């Protein structure tokens, strides 16, 4: 087929280009600009080159120490919630009914936490965990457990993790449920004929068939938990001390608390870069996994 080549067509892209320029490129370049400079107020800026970035990656400086510590907390947090939410989500999905009105009921109940705004989730758990008036805090305290998320690091972590599990396990469960529903009955019947045990059905059929939705679930939950801000901020404010201060909380402190625009800009660029890299890695894994299956797609 002959294609007409007309370079004037590029003008048609112009509106989108302008829109993206104003919404993404210009703000991003502003941040890049800040990250290379230092300011002492009065709108006076001084060139600092890659100084902030060097400081950021050097644990001996204040900025570097805070960044690397919060990065470590972020990674521990993400791994912890993934380790809980993924298996739990699978178990929930497996125990859901497959037909009847109870399906709709379960779906609605599962979706409820997902519909609650982050801020409200934080407030709910902030009150829920208080030893004086919160149901969780009060119960634990009266059982003789010394629980106080305001003063104890471990309790604070426990609360933040349980909160995330409560908020987001549904998402994993719903994704897994969708994956499970797409398995044709013939697979279960064949497994029955082949005399497979419940465990063999899970490992030979259900888990492999859920493999793609699980990747999506892990990706979504990792990105989301890595960027977490509102909930821990509302519940613990990053404390006690700095024990639940995640990168995003640190960033806001530096940018808006100390008004160190240069440091904050450098930090946010590195933060952004980490997320982009992880995204890319996951994307590559997922598309490769897809390509591996494609040639034989027709049959199954």
């Amino acid at each position, binding site marked *: 087929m002959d294609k007409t080549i007309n370079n004037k067509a590029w003008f048609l892209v112009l509106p989108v280009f302008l829109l993206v320029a104003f919404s993404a490129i210009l703000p991003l370049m502003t941040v890049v600009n800040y990250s290379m400079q230092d300011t002492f107020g009065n709108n006076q800026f001084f060139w600092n080159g890659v100084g902030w970035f060097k400081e950021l990656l050097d644990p001996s400086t204040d900025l570097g120490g805070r960044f690397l510590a919060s990065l470590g907390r972020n990674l521990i947090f993400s791994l912890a919630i993934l380790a809980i939410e993924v298996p739990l989500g699978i178990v929930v999905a497996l125990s859901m009914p497959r037909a009847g009105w109870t399906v709709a009921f379960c779906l609605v109940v599962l979706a409820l936490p997902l519909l609650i705004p982050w801020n409200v989730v934080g407030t709910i758990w902030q009150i829920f965990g208080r030893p004086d008036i919160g149901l969780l805090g009060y119960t634990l305290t009266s059982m003789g457990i010394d629980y106080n998320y305001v003063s104890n690091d471990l309790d604070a972590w426990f609360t933040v993790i349980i909160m995330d599990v409560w908020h987001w396990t549904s998402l994993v469960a719903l994704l897994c449920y969708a994956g499970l529903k797409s398995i*044709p009955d*013939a*697979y279960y*019947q*064949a497994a*029955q*004929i*082949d*005399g*497979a*045990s419940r465990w*063999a059905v899970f*490992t*030979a*059929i259900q888990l*492999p*068939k859920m493999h793609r939705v699980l990747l999506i679930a892990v990706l979504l939950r990792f990105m989301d938990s890595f960027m977490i801000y509102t909930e821990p901020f509302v519940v613990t404010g990053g404390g006690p001390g700095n024990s639940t201060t995640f990168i995003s909380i640190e960033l806001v402190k530096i940018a808006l608390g100390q008004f160190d625009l240069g440091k904050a800009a450098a930090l946010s660029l590195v933060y952004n870069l980490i997320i982009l890299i992880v995204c890319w890695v996951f994307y590559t894994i997922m598309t490769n996994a897809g390509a*591996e*299956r494609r*040639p*034989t797609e*027709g*049959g*199954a």
Partner: protein
Amino acid sequence: MARIDLVDLAQSYHGNDADIESFALKPVTMTWRQGGAYALLGPSGCGKTTLLNLISGILTPSRGKILFDGKDITQASTRERNIAQVFQFPVIYDTMTVGENLAFPLKNRGVPRAEIDKRVAEIARLLDLTPDLNRKATRLTADAKQKISLGRGLVRSDVAAVLFDEPLTVIDPELKWQLRSKLKALHRELDLTMIYVTHDQTEALTFADTVVVMHDGRVVQSGTPAELFDKPAHTFVGYFIGSPGMNILSAEVKGREARIDGHTLTLARSYDALPAGAKIEIGVRPEFVDVAAPGPGLLDANIERIDDLGRIRFARVRVGDAKFAARLPSGFSPSGSAIGLKFNPAYVHVYADSRLVEGA
């Protein structure tokens, strides 16, 4: 390995109290011999898959009993029944290699490693899967995947029966033919009872010693391919088997004479005690009606169209208002549309309310 008896077996998807006419499988009593090759033949929705799933235990029957070698296993699980079944679409276990897929049914039953290896190697050889044994099953074509499914069905040597639910639907015609012959050979070699569900008459007639024809939830006839062809017990069998199907014409039958639209036909047997009020039809296969030049003693008809199937030619003819198909003998070309029809009386059957009536 077992003889399978069905006793008044019926299945309803609308509860046990539903009208019997709404049952997916109406009560059926029959016996499947040990070592037989059976085909369950019928159009889509006639209840053949339901019957198969009842035998394998995927469904529990609404009524009736299933006996394996005289032992009632109606409530037994699929596992206890020790049945193998192959489904319409290939089912393979994604994470396993071809060899592991074939070994899966044996592994689940705790068969010793050496025995498993021996059986898998044998089945792989029979199905030409040996070169692929160590490949991941997901990477194979649909054909090969279905061969794996077949292999998993055949790998256990002690099964009561192997059930096939239209297993060659996804296979290319050429390979289909090969696989079918292979199954037939396997049947002779392994001495297993095999029940093969299909809606394709060629598949059924080439595979089976005994073809069971189902229609609307009922078993209407079970017999050898020749019996089904020569003496259909039900007009449905006549019409469903054969290409073109049997000619079914409403007629008035009295003694040795049948009257079709004012024309009289002489029958080989005499029908004196036909049920009153029943719908009477005669059925004759196109292969047993020859077209000839009009003459005395022949039924006058008009040719409408000639279908040349290469090896054989069939004429579509009209007798009064009734239409049917007849064979054109080789070398005969009719002059004009008026012709005569020569019947082979031995193959003209009489049906009352669609069921065959035996003449005296």
